[in-house]
């Protein structure tokens, strides 16, 4: 194995289809029109020296190293900023160029330290490479004059010298090594879209400056790492590289955080990860990353990781470390015992959207075939199950319709109940790039999110009251129908016309107009009408939505309302349009595909279907139960009732992530055997009897499927610290329960999935190796996968319009609970925080805060930073307030990343009518000043401490 070197072609790829032929150093070269001479030369195998150019950002032409000579043209133009023309004859190496380049390099090096041997970038420095490439042998200017290199010059303090900025936990900024090529500034602008960096001063005084000469940590920097990647010197360097040294081999793998599914090179020394670098060939991220995937992988080595299996009889007992065999047999005896006592349906399991497809598939197989029931569900229940129901009903399949590249062809972007800048940052960067090119943005969200406020982007913001999504969607449809903006040709050809007519008549009713619904939604009817017209008539319209759509009592209805809008305007079935759920976790799409829902087998086929079930029965050699099983909230209800007594949870912290924590505590406490399979003693483990240590994404092989249906490889770079990959653990547990599953490698599991699932029929590890990734459906009809769905027709045949009547949630505000609480994420933390809280990311977000409008705060005597009590009908907690007008009066907002806040103590049992997806996004609350933790928080903390004790190992005889 060696380091994967990605060739930097200097300038971005041109999308033109017109080819241009020219001669470079005597070679005929054909490249797309608009390509730079630099890139054309690189493609022909001739590397032109360069410093300020990199193919992640547009050409800039500042370093003057990439000069070339062109026959018939005067001077020595920069090859990065000079486009190719037919018939040009270019020379990249002449006497004149050699002299010029040497002169340029000599000037650069005259203001650069010569500590190459001890420099962090030693072995990976473009400046060093270029000095070598141009044959620099001497620097005639000396170092006595003005410089940025030395703290003291001529025994006086050097005012031009700046100390290292080590404020960012993951990388350092050493201004003394900076050559002011501005690659970092441009990466921050063009790739990330944050505009945190600039060049301050002019000429010799030019410096890279985060914000207004702030520290990196103190500036707007979001620590995505694009600048570090772009830096050609040691100026911006990962601290891990400084500590460890340069990596010697690398492996391409997939990030285990959000649903964007960024491809990374895990750069290694032996089995030590040196750094994670985004992979330019990754089709989801195209070489970009965010602070989580790029830097927050330290949790994989965290001291709190549990590496040995543990068991206990009662949750009051301390844990006892045991062998794998003992843990499996203890768990199996308990689970089989429960089935004997309470019936076959009294146990079940939960698959994880953080685990691989193969692992998820095995867990549902164990439950359906080994437990003999269908009590399998997945954490997607509490996030995107309404997407499954809604898109399957309207389009015929439960998946986003586009690939991420599609956004490059979008003219109008509608973001509903999602904050990609925080939760799907790499997609947000791609989206913002398109918006800066002129695409329009409509944001439908109770909060003025980072998307609304991002630089150089003007958004049309519809700040609706939480819980009124359906009313807003229907009002948008009302405008489209009554103003004659429907794409009738599309609807007639592609959809069921009579269903459309029924729907159109419904939405056209005056009570669905923006004016009539404004009293519920709080959205200005003029703004809403403008949004509807823009979406319907502004060219390619694409909808991206998140959990702000699904996690409501009308979540499924809103998903269908979104699908209605897309069909009515013809915005489906080609690049640039579509309906795109932004999946929360890395493998939400995959875990749903793999048959994690109690009612359906892999590939979204209902368990009651005899033909499908018989296929599985034949291959698994077992009779399957045709009745759907329990969904997660139903499991809790059944546990409290006493008919569901054993649970195997892989990689999900249900106690922290599910709503109404006290109800979950009651359910878990009632169970006789809870098996937690995880990296850490998470909150659920406080109520567990068996703990099976898990392996991190660095320690196993498998695949993840991202939000665009892209199946990508996860590759093992480190031996599992717990001794077994998660798929092996599930096999071990199954075997102890008397159900044998024989696989030698996850690729064999994928082969079984492909054999049983028509949309995966063409998927194999060999194909993933060959193509890098594929988007399902991947089968005979689409051997290389399907970037855009529903091109010639919907999966279900005719698109189905569904009448979506607004039904107010039963969670109502009133005198005792006058405010509405909604929840969301922050960039630096992920989900329940089990991973990110165990990294340096806590410097950005050490605690959950309650955002409250100044008006509401003043009424209650709450000042910024004060402790407040947050109370709902379900429970109460305390946290600190942050006063901001990002939220409207009457609305408060918090994140749910920290177990000591436990935002879910507050959230209620209300759920989506179709799928029981909890209504996290609407809770009526009261806020009042407080002195400290609530009684519940104190009791919880005491129980957690007590429950996490591990008995000291007994001395060997």
């Amino acid at each position, binding site marked *: 194995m060696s380091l994967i070197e990605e060739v930097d072609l200097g300038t971005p790829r041109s999308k033109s289809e017109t080819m241009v032929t020219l001669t470079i150093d005597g070679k005929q070269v054909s490249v797309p029109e608009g390509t730079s001479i630099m890139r054309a030369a690189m493609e022909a195998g001739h590397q032109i020296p360069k410093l300020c150019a990199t193919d992640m950002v547009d050409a800039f032409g500042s370093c003057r190293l990439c000069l070339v000579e062109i026959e018939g043209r005067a001077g020595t133009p920069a090859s990065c900023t000079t486009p190719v023309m037919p018939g040009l004859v270019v020379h990249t190496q002449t006497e004149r160029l050699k002299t010029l380049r040497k002169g340029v390099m000599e000037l650069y090096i005259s203001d650069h330290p010569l500590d190459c041997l001890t420099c962090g970038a030693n072995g990976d420095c473009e400046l060093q490479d270029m000095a070598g490439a141009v044959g620099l042998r001497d620097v005639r200017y000396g170092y006595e004059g003005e410089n940025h290199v030395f703290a003291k010059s001529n025994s006086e303090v050097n005012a031009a010298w700046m100390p290292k900025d080590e404020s960012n936990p993951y990388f350092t900024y050493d201004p003394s090594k900076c050559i002011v090529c501005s690659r970092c500034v441009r990466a921050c602008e063009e790739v990330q879209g944050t505009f945190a960096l600039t060049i301050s001063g002019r000429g010799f005084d030019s410096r890279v400056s985060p914000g207004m000469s702030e520290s990196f940590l103190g500036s707007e920097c979001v620590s995505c790492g694009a600048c570090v990647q772009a830096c050609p010197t040691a100026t911006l360097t990962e601290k891990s590289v400084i500590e460890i040294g340069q990596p010697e081999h690398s492996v391409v793998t997939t990030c285990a955080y959000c649903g964007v599914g960024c491809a990374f090179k895990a750069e290694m020394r032996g089995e030590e990860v040196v750094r994670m670098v985004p992979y330019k060939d990754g089709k989801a991220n195209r070489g970009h990353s965010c602070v989580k995937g790029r830097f927050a992988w330290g949790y994989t080595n965290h001291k709190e990781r549990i590496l040995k299996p543990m068991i206990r009889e009662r949750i009051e007992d301390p844990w006892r470390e045991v062998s794998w065999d003992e843990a499996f047999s203890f768990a199996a005896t308990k689970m089989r015992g429960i089935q004997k006592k309470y019936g076959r349906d009294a146990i079940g399991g939960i698959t994880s959207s953080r685990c691989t497809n193969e692992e998820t598939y095995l867990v549902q197989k164990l439950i359906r075939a080994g437990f003999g029931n269908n009590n399998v569900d997945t954490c997607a229940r509490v996030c995107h199950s309404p997407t499954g129901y809604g898109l399957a009903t309207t389009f015929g399949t439960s998946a986003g319709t586009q690939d991420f590249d599609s956004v490059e062809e979008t003219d109008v972007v509608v973001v509903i109940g999602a904050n990609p800048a925080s939760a799907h940052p790499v997609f947000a960067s791609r989206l913002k790039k398109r918006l800066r090119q002129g695409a329009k943005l409509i944001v439908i969200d109770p909060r003025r999110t980072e998307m609304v406020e991002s630089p150089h982007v003007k958004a049309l913001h519809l700040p609706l009251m939480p819980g009124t999504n359906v009313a807003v969607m229907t009002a948008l449809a009302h405008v489209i129908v009554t103003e004659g903006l429907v794409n009738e040709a599309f609807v007639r050809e592609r959809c069921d016309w009579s269903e459309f007519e029924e729907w159109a008549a419904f939405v056209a009713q005056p009570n669905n107009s923006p004016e009539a619904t404004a009293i519920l939604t709080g959205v200005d009817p003029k703004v809403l009408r403008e949004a509807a017209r823009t979406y319907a008539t502004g060219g390619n319209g694409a909808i991206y939505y998140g959990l702000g759509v699904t996690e409501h009592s*009308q979540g499924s209805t809103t998903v269908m309302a979104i699908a209605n809008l897309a069909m009515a305007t013809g915005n489906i079935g080609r690049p640039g349009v579509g309906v795109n759920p932004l999946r929360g976790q890395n493998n939400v799409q995959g875990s749903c595909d793999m048959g994690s829902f*109690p009612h359906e087998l892999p590939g979204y086929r209902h368990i009651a279907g005899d033909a499908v079930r018989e296929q599985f029965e034949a291959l698994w050699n077992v009779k399957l139960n045709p*009745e*759907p099983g329990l969904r997660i909230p139903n499991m809790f*209800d*059944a546990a409290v009732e006493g*008919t569901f007594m054993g649970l195997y949870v892989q990689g999900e912290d249900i106690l922290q992530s599910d709503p109404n924590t006290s109800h979950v505590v009651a359910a878990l406490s009632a169970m006789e055997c809870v098996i937690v399979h995880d990296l850490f003693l998470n909150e659920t483990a406080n109520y567990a009897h068996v703990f099976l240590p898990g392996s991190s994404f660095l320690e196993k092989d498998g695949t993840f499927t991202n939000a665009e249906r892209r199946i990508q490889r996860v590759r093992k770079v480190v031996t599992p610290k717990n001794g077994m990959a998660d798929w092996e653990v599930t096999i071990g547990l199954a075997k102890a329960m008397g159900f044998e599953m024989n696989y030698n490698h996850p690729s064999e599991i994928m082969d079984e999935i492909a054999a049983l699932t028509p949309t995966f029929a063409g998927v194999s590890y060999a194909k993933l190796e060959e193509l890098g990734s594929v988007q399902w459906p991947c089968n005979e009809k689409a051997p290389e996968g399907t970037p855009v769905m529903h091109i010639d027709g919907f999966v279900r045949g005719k698109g189905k319009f569904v009448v979506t009547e607004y039904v107010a949630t039963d969670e109502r505000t009133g005198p005792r609970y006058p405010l509405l609480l909604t929840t969301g994420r922050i960039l630096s933390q992920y989900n329940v925080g089990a991973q990110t809280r165990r990294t340096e990311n806590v410097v950005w977000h050490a605690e959950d805060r309650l955002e409250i409008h100044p008006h509401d705060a003043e009424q209650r005597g709450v000042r910024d930073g004060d402790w407040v009590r947050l109370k709902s009908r379900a429970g109460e907690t305390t946290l600190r307030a942050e006063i901001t007008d990002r939220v409207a009066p009457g609305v408060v907002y918090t994140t749910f990343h920290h177990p000591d806040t436990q935002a879910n103590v507050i959230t209620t049992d209300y759920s989506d*009518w*179709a*799928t029981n997806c909890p209504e996290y996004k609407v809770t009526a609350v009261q806020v009042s000043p407080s002195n400290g933790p609530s009684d519940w928080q104190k009791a919880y903390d005491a129980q957690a401490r007590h429950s996490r004790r591990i008995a000291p190992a007994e001395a060997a005889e």
Partner: protein
Amino acid sequence: MSPDRLIYMANQIGKFFQSQGHDKAVPGIAEHIKKFWDPRMKRAIFAHLDAGGAGLEPNVREAIASLKQTTALPTAP
């Protein structure tokens, strides 16, 4: 399972289908419960129906009655 919770869930399903009119709503509700409820939930709501079905909206009650007639649930294992 607690009938109150199941009655609430069933009525919530009923509310979605209400705007489609009685003739579509009743089979719609029945189909939804058939596809997504586990046997113990079905048994409990059928038992509740037999006990008078208090609290069930008319369409929902009709849907559950029709579902009950066409469903042969395994006895509790």
